[in-house]
């Protein structure tokens, strides 16, 4: 099962290494990892997407909680939550493809944020499935570069992760 694990941690040198080291040392899987400071610069918020059985995810959250730099851990996928990912995708846009690419970007509610004679840079946000769908919908040969941020997520409504 795919899980979205949200972590509040001390914004300290080495904290990221402790978490990534834990995953590699114990053989846990990381699909994506995003991290940045919160409104309180002494803390960072991290979102990890991992795939594992319930037992493995339980161990992951316990092991994360054991790290001294980790303030709180929550498995967002246990309840209602929102998740988003940002993708910057550079595509070839010449001839008839130029028109087609503009249309596809519109359909997926993407923004074209850079234009040259032969390329578009499309900015797209959504859940990972939507970004995958965009990649699937355009001609693969036209893709020049893909950059994805990885998923970040937050619980809905009153589900708040605070120190």
């Amino acid at each position, binding site marked *: 099962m795919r899980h979205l694990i949200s972590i509040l*941690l*001390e914004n300290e*040198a*080495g904290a990221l*290494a*402790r978490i990534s*080291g834990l995953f590699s*040392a114990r053989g846990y899987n990381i699909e994506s990892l995003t991290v940045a400071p919160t409104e309180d610069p002494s803390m960072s918020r991290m979102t990890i997407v991992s795939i594992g059985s319930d*037992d493995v995810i*339980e*161990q992951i959250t*316990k*092991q994360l*909680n*054991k790290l*001294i*730099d*980790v*303030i709180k851990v929550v498995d967002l996928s246990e309840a209602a939550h929102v998740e988003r990912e940002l993708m910057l995708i550079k595509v070839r846009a010449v001839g008839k493809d130029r028109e087609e690419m503009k249309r596809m970007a519109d359909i997926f509610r993407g923004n074209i944020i850079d234009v040259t004679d032969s390329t578009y840079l499309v900015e797209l946000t959504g859940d990972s499935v939507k970004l995958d769908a965009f990649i699937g919908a355009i001609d693969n040969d036209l893709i020049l570069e893909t950059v994805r941020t990885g998923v970040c997520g937050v619980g809905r409504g009153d589900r708040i992760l605070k*120190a």
Partner: protein
Amino acid sequence: MVLTGAEIVIRCLQEEKVEYIFGYPGGSVLHIYDELFKQDKIKHILVRHEQAAVHAADAYSRSSHKVGVCMVTSGPGVTNAVTGIATAYTDSIPMVVISGQAPTHMIGQDAFQECDTVGITRPCVKHNFLVKDVKDLAVTIKKAFYIAQSGRPGPVLVDVPKDLGVDKCEFDYPKSVTIRSYNPATKGHSGQIKKAVQLLLEAKRPLIYAGGGIILSNTADRLTKLAHMLEVPVTNTLMGLGGFPATDKQNLGMLGMHGTYEANMAMQHADVLLAIGARFDDRVIGHPEDFASVPRKIIHVDIDPSSIAKRVKVDVPIVGNLNEVLDELIAQLKASEGKVEPKALASWWKDIDGWRKKDSLKYKMGKEIIMPQYVIEKLYEVTGGEAIVTSDVGQHQMWAAQYYKFDKPRRWLNSGGLGTMGYGLPAAMGAIFANPKTPVACVTGEGSIQMNIQEMSTCKQFRLPVKIVNLNNRYLGMVRQWQEMFYGNRYSESYVDALPDFVKLAEAYGHVGMQITKPADVEPALREAFVKHKNELVFLDFLTDPTANVYPMVANGKGLSEMVLAEDL
């Protein structure tokens, strides 16, 4: 008061009432060693290899319940210490390691004796710090001591760049420290404890399985009280030996790969298992699927939530400090005025007595050749069970665990989790510093002892009267045993050729050496060592049966009831 960083380190350690630092100087810690020289509150024990410093600090802690402290220089000082740190980490030993580091402005430039200490040690410490500003030094050391001994204990490393040693700042050692991201559990959940009491009282075949957590939390007395109230059998893990008196009639001995027949059979037949401060290690429960195939209810008490439901499914998890959990368990049990149903309990004890009749630790005594088990039995007799016994890793370790009956906690020091050869002798040193009046024996083998034999020099310098009991069978015995059992007698690299003359070697270091070749000489030699040479290090080189194997044995990947007993062969 404005002090230099080096002064601050020493002042902090004094504030923590540190008696001994085990260490080895080098370039990046010279400022600190200079301050050490100028004071006389803390004694420094100069070892001959950094690994030994860490093991000695570790055993100092294990045998005293104080935090072990060691100091090493940057680069190779740290890398040599890593085995010791990992040993302490696996067995949850509270320790603070101060390491030197290249000056802050040179970090990352491949400076002389620079290494990424925080990176290298990260997976084998409870936590570590690189201090970059002298103003953070005191509070970091305070945090290190707090983290090391609270919650599930473990080693904490503080990496101090050389330039901090001369940087100055106002010194103020905090009385206490709080860390918002670190709040170890204390009290157990009362509702869960109530469930546990109910389960235990309804049990037909209850068993207590107690591990190293009992030793670490100083709760041997509480465990004993609980076991006596319930009148149920108790088995200890390798790390838990001494947590419940070995000579108590309710004790089934050690369980696991080389556990007694009765302990392993009880584990597989119990209907309610109370696991306390133990972690269902692979060497303890055998194959997890086989273990899980037996229907039983498991109550698991541990301070570390990640130890619970890691390897086995648990019915009643209780997270908390064993002191508080056991107190409440005992109180609730008393309040309930309940008893385990006497008839069921009597029948359970009858089963156990049946298994005990197998006498699974019996061995064939030779007239000409010394059996290693016999040496341990005699060691127990000669020391009246009052010695602290350290061991290395291998057959001798298992024999020491099986045949020396530990009635008290903190008497048995071994590398249970990591299985570090070379632990025994430096551990014996640490134990003597913490317990100067207690006889200390290091049970070892001719393979293990050579992994830190240089420490005989430290023992000479500090007059440490370790009694080295070397069970010399000319083989890496446990490797040879596995090769005999699972690799068609192909003894690949397990014969130890070109052994030194241990007697002369001991003498060369300025100690007493003896070689013992006959069973009849075992006891007199031990008496001579422990009585006549009470205040000296004695190297007792026992030439033992090279074919002796450790039994019972549960082969790797087998279930606990599939034990191979000595009599089956």
